[in-house]
């Protein structure tokens, strides 16, 4: 079930909201709704995520109750190994067997089903276990509360990734006021609009172009790359906003996941703005334990490369993701080696230009179905291969042209800055208290307009790909 589907938007979500409003024992009902949400898409594979919850509940108590540091550490090691084994088996076994041992495409190991969101719930589980080990949080004695942390449907399949210690308190006690509902609803509607009104039309351009990479001209190769750049931001960002909005409506405060990443002036800054919850997770649970930047420059570069190789692999079991991770790791190392200092002395337009170029090239690696296809598109983008193709104007419809321009404009915080005095926008935290009543009316009007426009598209059965299958 995806947020931008008829079944979620017009049946599951309203029923959930009604139940949350009236039925007591809200954490339990939230868990039951989340299990159903997962079961609709994954069927009996829900047992995998359920088993993961049970195991981590026991592991958490096991770590918490062990007094001796060595035993605590051993317990943590075992529990993390079990979690990673699950991830390794379901997500990477086929990739490893094929890449390293040449397993044929029709062998059983290549057909292992990838349970949706396994990367997300595994990271949640590891966060929970490490937070207990570090005494950042206590083991959750309520099985329902831990289930809710790991299974909560708003963030179950696409994040944001929650670190346990940031949300443990809210699992036990939270408050929903009318401001939570207002900001949550408006943010959900705007996120839905980002996904349905911007990301989906851009996917309608990018997908067929990537599918016929060999026939692209330099111009259409750039069009494919730029449209995908917008698609992934508004798709992922929109999905995150919907999740955060739903969280607010249920009394949770999920962390912000995107902060206008395409206005970054370096790749280092980009990773402070892109998928922030994943960056924070890697920083807290991998980069810092590896030594971070405390062990001298060489080990810092090594740590960065390890983190980004794994970050790439986390996104999907394919060499394109590994290359994408390595590419970003390398750019970060180069920036640390002095390139970032040089950049800072350059005009801002060059800083933005460099970052956007690097990001767009990265997205080609990320989106391509194979290394060959990535190489083909990049070679066309950089004029190493010239093929004639339809002109860009021939490919884009009027709607797609408008969406492309709107997507570029909305990638920068221009509208937000211009409107925040008059409209109660949900992206601002902490929520301002001195706004006039009309600011809320205008915000609601914009949210409802986005909801109606998105609903029109959803009901019409417009093209709406789901890009999180591999995550």
């Amino acid at each position, binding site marked *: *079930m995806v947020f931008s*589907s*008829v*079944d979620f*938007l*017009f*049946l599951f*979500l*309203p*029923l959930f*909201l*009604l139940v*949350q*409003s*009236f039925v007591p024992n*809200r*954490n339990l009902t939230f868990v039951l709704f989340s299990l159903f949400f997962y*079961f*609709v*898409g*994954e*069927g*009996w594979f829900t047992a995998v995520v359920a088993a993961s919850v049970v195991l981590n509940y026991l592991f958490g108590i096991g770590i918490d109750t062990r007094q001796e540091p060595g035993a605590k550490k051993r317990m943590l090691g075992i529990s993390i190994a079990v979690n990673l084994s699950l991830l390794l088996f379901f997500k990477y076994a086929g990739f490893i067997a094929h890449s390293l041992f040449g397993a044929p495409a029709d062998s059983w190991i290549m057909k292992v089903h990838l349970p949706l969101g396994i990367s997300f719930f595994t990271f949640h589980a590891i966060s929970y276990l490490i937070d207990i080990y570090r005494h950042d949080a206590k083991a959750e004695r309520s099985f329902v509360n831990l289930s809710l942390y790991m299974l909560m449907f708003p963030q179950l399949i696409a994040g944001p990734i929650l670190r346990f210690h940031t949300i443990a308190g809210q699992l*036990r*006690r*939270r*408050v*929903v*006021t*009318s401001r*939570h*509902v*207002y900001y949550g*609803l408006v943010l959900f509607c705007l996120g839905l609009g980002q996904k349905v009104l911007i990301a989906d039309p851009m996917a309608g351009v990018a997908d067929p172009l990537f599918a016929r990479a060999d026939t692209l001209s330099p111009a259409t190769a750039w069009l494919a790359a730029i449209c995908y750049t917008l698609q992934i931001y508004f798709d992922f960002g929109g999905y995150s906003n919907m999740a955060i909005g739903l969280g607010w*409506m*249920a*009394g949770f405060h999920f962390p912000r996941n995107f902060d206008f990443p395409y206005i970054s002036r370096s790749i280092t800054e980009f990773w402070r703005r892109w998928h922030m919850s994943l960056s924070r997770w890697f920083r807290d649970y991998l980069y810092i334990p590896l030594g971070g930047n405390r062990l001298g420059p060489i080990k810092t570069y090594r740590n960065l490369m390890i983190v980004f190789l794994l970050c790439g692999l986390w996104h999907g079991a394919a060499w394109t993701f590994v290359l994408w991770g390595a590419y970003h790791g390398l750019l970060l190392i180069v920036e640390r080696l002095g390139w970032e200092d040089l950049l800072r002395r350059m005009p801002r337009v060059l800083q933005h230009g460099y970052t956007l170029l690097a990001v767009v090239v990265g997205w080609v690696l990320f989106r391509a179905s194979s290394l060959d296809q990535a190489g083909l598109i990049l070679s066309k983008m950089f004029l190493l291969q010239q093929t004639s193709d*339809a*002109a860009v*104007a*021939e*490919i*884009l*419809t*009027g*709607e*797609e*042209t*408008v969406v492309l321009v709107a997507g570029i404009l909305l990638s920068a915080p221009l509208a937000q800055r211009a409107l925040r005095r008059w409209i109660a926008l949900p992206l601002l935290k902490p929520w301002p208290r001195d706004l006039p009543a009309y600011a809320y009316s205008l915000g609601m009007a914009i949210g409802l307009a986005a909801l109606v426009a998105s*609903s*029109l*598209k959803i*009901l*019409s*059965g*417009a093209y709406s790909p789901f890009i999180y299958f591999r995550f």
Partner: protein
Amino acid sequence: MLLISPLARVLTCLIALLLLIPVAGIRLQDEARLVQFHNRNLNVLPPPDGFMRDPVEFFRQAKSWLADRAYPIQQASLLQKKILFHAFKTPPQRRISLGSDGFIFVNGGSEETVNGILANVCMNSHDEAMAAQLRGLLPSVIQFASSRGMAVDVVIVPTSMTLYADRLPTSVPQIYRDACRERMQGHSPLLTLTAPPGLNFVYPLQAMKSASSDEAFFPKGNWHPTGMSLKVVRDSYLDALHVGKTVDDRLERGMGPSEIMNTYGIDVELPVYFVRNPRVQFDAARNATFNTAIRERFTASQATTRAYANAAPLLEESVLMLSDSYGEFSSEVFAGAFRNVVQVTSNNLSREHVVDVVDRSAAAFKIDRLILLVQEGGVGNLVVWANAFAAAPAMH
């Protein structure tokens, strides 16, 4: 523990009730109209026993059931397409393109083959080999018809894509635009195809080109020609028959809805001609007899037929027009020249039943003339029919 303020509870309920409208409104939906809207059978609710067997498939089917019926799906789809068309000049589907000067073209038969019609109309039908194959089969067609006591003619009607190739938008791939322009400039083996004696072969591209500067000649928003363009086709055909007289009908100019946009519920009024001939009447009794005689040869016994009678014809002949959907529009105009015209659309007719349909028609009525009429992308259909005729036993 979750503390919800009363106002938050009221707001949440209002939102939930608002979001439930599409599901609650399913009861208001008319299934027959939904079938027409989707142009396919609606998804059905899965049987409960399918849940244990494959829950994912069960829910997939249930979601499809819901998505087919959510209220107001028809109005939402229509409104969305209207907004796209009027605000963003975006066609309702990728297979439709909006040309210059208000022209609207159908590039393909489905979203899977967005340029399939263009390929047939401007390329495949004008292929030298295809034309040669058709030419080679024409003697068999003559033999087939003459053994049944009929004359036979072939009419290929040019489409707006070749007549107005210069109005195709840049969104149409260059290869098709170039091919259509070539046809518009008169490069086609169909123009030089010489039919054997006993068959009139008519491809009135030049005659239609000459008249095409009138903006209502071939309605800009239509796939099918009407009015003036069909009159030119018919008169070109009668010229080929050396009739020597003209049909006494008249053209009346007016405004009509775009046929293409109308299928999406979008109102676009464009100038159009109507052919007025008070002597030509729809012959309901003849049509019923005709339809009954042949319909079981069609998929699901669905034969689209027409029958017209003319009180004062130029030729005392009864005509059977075997055609694609262009015949549905042409038959009434052609009836201006003949005593009777019965027309059948071949869209639901498989190749092996073509001969039988002709024979059943001939058994139901006396048929003097068989006209095979297709739009220009349908030359392949002509070849299929000709092959079927060539394989049919002669009848004496």
